[in-house]
Every structure is written in structure tokens, then in C-alpha cells.
């Protein structure tokens, strides 16, 4: 933290000195900072949306399974507990241009083969795919645990009073799941803003700077250019961003609970 106010650079002979907010001012004019921010936001927004959507669908499906729920939930979870090194290796193999399974499937379907992590446009989406694969099961397990803890009497009551499955889901289940969803989204948000290892191993921030997210740019500044002070400023900005976003989500998730409760009551009254 203190570093972020100095011009500390590992290669410079001059002792570091206090330069106030200069690092932060420089940030505003650094186009690479803005592009890395944009990349991080696009990445975070897409993975969270897809993971929440698919995760919710799978959790609901799992909840309706007559047996083996716990076993399937645990088996599904394997991707989320694997080391990023292992995950990167697995996907490196699947992304292979000639012998990779993904391109094999595309060829079977007569679709154009992709270069995946090697193409400037596709690299970020390849990372989204990997993150989707690794963390959707985590989402499923959290939401599934949330579903299990819901008061079934309320849902049953709504059914008996004649609301359709969709209505129950929209007006009962989702509002009741609000807290769990908030927790899951925030954990994934933090994960997306922290993601470094997989990028490092799969794309190295490239091609060019196509996948240089905030944490990766922080790394580049610190370990390639050795501008430690600037790098510290970057990480501090990242930390502030995560905190603000998490606050916003928490606020958004917890505020309208009165309204949704009212809606729930209305549905029951109808």
C-alpha cells in the first residue's frame, strides 16, 4: 500500500521517494490500464451471467432428481477443486489446433475450426469457457445447498394456491434464494478479479494484450517492467473496485426484499 505512493522501481538506483498521487494520475492516462479494466469487466460480467444462469438451471434440475443428488453434486464439483495448473493443462490439450477434441467436434459438426487461445478475438472467450467449466459446478453446489434450505411449506402453499411452476420460481424461490445468489455472485466476482494463474498458463496475457486483465497487467508492470510502485497502485485500484462492486451487489440483493415479500404475499392472496 505504501509502495503505491512512491516511484519504487527495482532497476532504478535512486532511492524511492514519495510522489504522492502521481501513480494514480498516471493510471488515468494509461490506455493499457483502461483496456485491462475493460477486459476484466467483460470477463467478469460474462462468466457471472453464464454461470449464474446455467448454475441455477442445473441446481433446480438437481433438486428435482429423486435420488443420488449428493453424489452427482460432488462429482460435478471436481472441476472447482482442481489446481489451476491441472485445469490449464487439461484445456491446453483440448484447445490443441490439430489434435484437440474441441476442434475435432467442430469438424464433425462441419463448423469452422478455431485457434482458441491463439486468436486475438477468441482468446478471451476461451478463458471464459475455461472459467465457466471450472466454476459453474461451484455455483450449482451453492445454489443447490440454498434450495435445500428453503422452507418447503411456503413453496407448497403457493402451489396449492394455484401458481404455476414458473410463478413459484419467479416469486418464491428466487427471492428466497437472494442471499445465496448474492454470496455466490460476490465470490465469483472476487474470483474473476483475482484470476491470474489460468491466464498466465493458457494465454500469457496474449495474443498481444488481448487477455491482459487487471491482475495480469499488475503482474506485467511489477515483474516485467519492475515498476513496483505503479504495480502497487494498480492492485490498490483493483481492491477498491472489488469492494465497491461487492457493496453494490449486496445492496441490490438485499434492498428489494420487502417488495418481493409483498409480491409473494400477493401471489398467495391471488
Amino acid at each position, binding site marked *: 500500500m505504501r509502495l503505491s505512493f512512491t516511484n519504487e522501481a527495482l532497476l532504478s538506483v535512486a532511492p524511492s521517494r514519495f510522489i504522492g498521487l502521481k501513480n494514480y494520475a498516471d493510471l488515468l492516462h494509461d490506455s493499457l490500464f483502461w483496456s485491462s479494466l475493460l477486459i476484466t469487466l467483460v470477463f467478469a460480467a460474462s462468466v457471472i451471467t453464464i454461470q449464474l444462469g446455467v448454475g441455477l438451471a442445473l441446481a433446480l434440475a438437481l433438486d428435482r432428481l429423486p435420488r443420488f443428488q449428493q453424489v452427482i453434486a460432488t462429482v460435478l464439483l471436481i472441476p472447482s477443486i482442481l489446481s489451476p495448473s491441472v485445469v490449464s493443462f487439461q484445456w491446453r490439450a483440448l484447445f490443441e489446433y490439430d489434435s484437440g477434441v474441441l476442434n475435432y467436434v467442430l469438424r464433425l459438426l462441419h463448423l469452422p475450426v478455431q485457434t482458441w487461445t491463439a486468436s486475438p478475438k477468441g482468446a478471451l472467450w476461451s478463458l471464459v469457457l475455461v472459467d465457466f467449466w471450472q466454476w459453474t459446478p461451484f455455483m450449482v453446489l451453492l445454489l443447490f445447498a440454498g434450495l435445500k434450505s428453503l422452507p418447503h411449506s411456503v413453496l407448497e402453499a403457493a402451489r396449492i394456491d394455484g401458481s404455476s411452476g414458473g410463478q413459484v420460481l419467479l416469486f418464491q424461490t428466487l427471492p428466497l434464494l437472494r442471499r445465496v445468489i448474492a454470496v455466490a455472485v460476490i465470490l465469483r466476482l472476487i474470483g474473476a478479479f483475482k484470476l491470474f494463474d489460468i491466464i498466465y498458463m493458457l494465454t500469457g496475457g496474449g495474443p498481444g494484450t488481448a487477455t491482459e486483465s487487471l491482475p495480469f497487467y499488475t503482474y506485467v508492470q511489477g515483474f516485467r517492467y519492475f515498476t513496483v510502485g505503479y504495480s502497487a497502485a494498480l492492485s490498490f485500484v483493483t*481492491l477498491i473496485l472489488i469492494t465497491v462492486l461487492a457493496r453494490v451487489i449486496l445492496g441490490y440483493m438485499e434492498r428489494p426484499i420487502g417488495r418481493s415479500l409483498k409480491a409473494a404475499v400477493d401471489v398467495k392472496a391471488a
Partner: protein
Amino acid sequence: MATQATTRRGRPLATPVARRGAPQVAVYLGLTLALVFFLFPVYWMLSTSIKPPIEWLHNPPVFFPSQLYFRNYTDALFDQGGLKGLVDSAIVSVTATVIGMAIGTFAAYSLARFKTGGTNLSFFILSVLFMPPVAIAIPMFLFWSTLGLVDTYVALIVQYLLFTVPFVTWVMKSFFEDISPAMEESALVNGAGRLRAFWEVVLPNARPALVATTLFAFIFTWNEFTFAVLLSRGRVTTLPFILPTLMESHYILWGDIAAIAAIGALPVVIVAFALQRYLVRGLSFGAIKST
């Protein structure tokens, strides 16, 4: 219509099976697809690890290995440093987990029962976990190199403690807050000291949470990548460090690497399966209570 129950709008009430929304077929179909998608990369790793070299990069891909080629495993363990990686990973992660549990549990108890440091201290502890590892990588690296401890077990273990201690503290704190102080109080009244009450009354009751946090501290330290790479110069080589170095070579030995990856994945998967009941609490930092 007179005999059939209807809703207010005159729609017949659905039968019990179909009444919960989408048809059951969709449930099975969706879950099957999900299982295939989420498990295929794992299967691919396992099958590659027993493929003979000619099938590693075959086009079209070989889905079922023609023979069980276990040489990959012996090569991986003895020629590619897999055994050393396994031992180093075990030393680092077990030590960091055990010490982290010991410190973290006491800290959590203190935070939960005596409100040590008010509300801010516990939030500060949590915020450490939200920090991207890269953010503190440089300061930590400078710190360890000043002490001359880069590439030692001590550095890596202490580094991991910086994550496991806050994690354990946070999850255990939420648990200790849940259990009522009445039991310890009765122990205290009956003449036990604080420490004895903690040891003999609180801890046995905290077993599910202890298991969950140990599980996750272990998974975290076993898998950690950033500092494993940062603080290693080739003497302390944990499995997450070995894998990417092998992938950077000119001729990638897919089968050998797959074998190391499988070996690296195995302990984590085993403990997760053995302790599946405790997974949720650890995963959600204790934010969602279960079990």
C-alpha cells in the same frame, strides 16, 4: 370438469409428477449433458495419462487408449520430478494446513466470544482473502529475498499461512457464533478453565466446521499456483509449479504431464469425496450454513 380439481382460472391442477415446472425428461437430459461436459476434461486427462506416446497428439483424437501404458506414470514420477513434487506439495500443504488450523481456530474463538478488536479486526481479516495474490506478490518476494529465504519450505509455508489463517478464522468464527455459549458456561461453572472448556466442550461440538475448514485449507494450499511459482527456484517444487514448467518445453510430453496432473488431482478429489458432506460450508466461506 366437476370432478377434476381446477385452479381459480379453470386450469386443471397438474399431477404431482409434472406439477413442478419443466418435464422430468429435461431434468435428466440437462444433468447428463452437464456431467459429460464437466467431466470430459478430467476423463481426457486420465485417458491421456495411460496412452502410449503415438496416441497423445493423434488426429483424430483417440478417445479410448488402445493399451494401458503405465510407463507415463513411472516416467512422470521418476524422470520428470513428479515424486519430488508430490513430497514437496505434501510437506508444504500439510504443514500450512495444520498450523493454520491451530492459529485460526483460536483466533476465531477469541473473535467470536470476546469480540477481540471489535468488528473491524474481523473484517480486516476477511479482506486479506479478497486480495488478488498478484497484488502482494512483489512486496512478499522482496521480503523473502531480503531474508534470503526464497526457495525454502519455510517461505512457502509461512506465505500460505497468510491465507489459511484468515480463511480458517473467518469460517470458524461464523461457526462459533452459531453455537450457544451456554455449554461452555456450565463447564466453567463446574470448575473447568477457559482453555479446558474450549478443548473439551467447544471443539468436539465444532467438528463439522473443523473438518470443512481443514478440507479447504488443504485444497487451497495443495493447489496454490502464484506463490508456488514466485517463491521457487527449483529446489522447492510443488506439483502446481512443476506442471507449467513441463508445458513450456519444446516437445511437450503430454502423457507424462497428464500423469503428473492426475497424481496432483488425486489427493484433492479423494478428500473431497470422503468429506463431501462438509463441502458447502468451506466453499462459501461459511456464508451458507449447511450440515
